[in-house]
């Protein structure tokens, strides 16, 4: 064990080395490591937030889907109701329309019958006149008996 100036030299080297570490090694490295730790923590927090957002969005989507289904069912129900209503209305309309057509036809038939009767009457009258002419040609003057003939025609 021999103490000499080596001790001083070593102490100076040591002091300079510690100063150097304090200045150029420790702060940059620890700052960088802290920054990295912070970034990792931030990233994890962001991931967690993203997961929560996703969960909320999924819940909202499920809600929307459920609401939409409900609406669709309501729409279908009203549509069905409306359809039966329309069918019923159409049935009613058709039956009244049919009744009207039948009534019209009956009216027309009646008219036709009347017209036919008229025509027949004319015809029969002419036939009677023609017959009577033929019968009376000899003895009766058509002009003389016109009054009589028209009164007969009116009686038809």
């Amino acid at each position, binding site marked *: 064990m021999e103490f*000499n100036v*080596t001790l001083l030299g070593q102490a100076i080297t040591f002091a300079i080395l510690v100063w150097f570490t304090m200045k*150029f090694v420790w702060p940059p490295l620890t700052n960088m490591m802290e920054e990295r730790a912070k970034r990792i923590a931030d990233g994890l927090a962001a991931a967690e937030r993203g997961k929560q957002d996703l969960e909320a969005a999924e819940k909202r989507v499920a809600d929307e889907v459920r609401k939409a289904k409900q609406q669709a069912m309501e729409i279908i129900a009203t549509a069905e109701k409306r359809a039966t209503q329309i069918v019923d209305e159409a049935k009613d309309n058709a039956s009244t329309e049919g009744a009207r057509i039948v009534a019209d036809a009956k009216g027309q038939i009646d008219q036709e019958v009347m017209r036919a009767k008229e025509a027949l009457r004319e015809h029969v009258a002419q036939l009677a006149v023609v017959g009577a002419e033929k019968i009376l040609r000899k003895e009766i003057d058509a002009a003389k008996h016109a009054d009589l003939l028209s009164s007969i025609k009116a009686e038809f």
Partner: protein
Amino acid sequence: MASNAIEYINHHLTFWNSDPSPARGFWSLHVDTFSVSLFLAFVFAGVFAMVARRASLENPGKLQLFVESIIELVDTQVKEIFHAKSNVIAPLALTIFCWIFLMNAMDMLPVDLLPNIAQWIGHSFFGLEPHHVYFRSVPSADVNATFAMSLSVFLCIIGFSIKAKGLGGWGKELLTAPFHTHNPIGAIILAPLNFIFQLVELAAKPISLSLRLFGNLYAGELIFILIALLPWGAQWILGAPWAIFHILIITLQAFVFMMLTIVYLSLAVEAH
């Protein structure tokens, strides 16, 4: 053989002193201790400063991860033990750990490697007698190196104490702890006793720090030298286990020195 062996051991345990005369005084330098530890200081500072300069936040390389793991180790210890705020203690602990580790690790070199190179250089280029060229490659097996560090730590302890408690507060603590009384006469009687206790406690710190490191490394080196005296074919039988065991000692001693430094400084800052 016996005288040869003693000569061999003595040769290996002699420093390369800047003043070869036996009557040298304080102003002589152990060139080997100083230069090897200076070289190792450059290695440490160079590697760490380079990593710190090129440090990448996103994409750290393997060397950076290695350096970061050491820093993490030191930082964890400092944060666990030292609760006050200080910008000095963590870099100090890191420097102690790395520098001592590197100095200790010189023990893993073959015992004859650096001395033989030194002898060859001295003989070939400076025409020196090989027997008078001495070189010890493990700086931490030199009390000058270990005491230089432990006394620096000692100064830090005193500095931290004064900074934390003030000169008066620290002086008061030297006189009133560990034995404490509210009786004024008792306090006066206890004051010298306390002072002696505190001085012993204070002085024991640097001495135990440096002698522990020195003793371990000196013993390790000595055993390597003794193993080197065995026939070459048998050296590995003892050399390999001792070298493997020494890996543990090298790291452990560096770690212990660092830990005790942190503990002493935290004691200096905290009140008794």
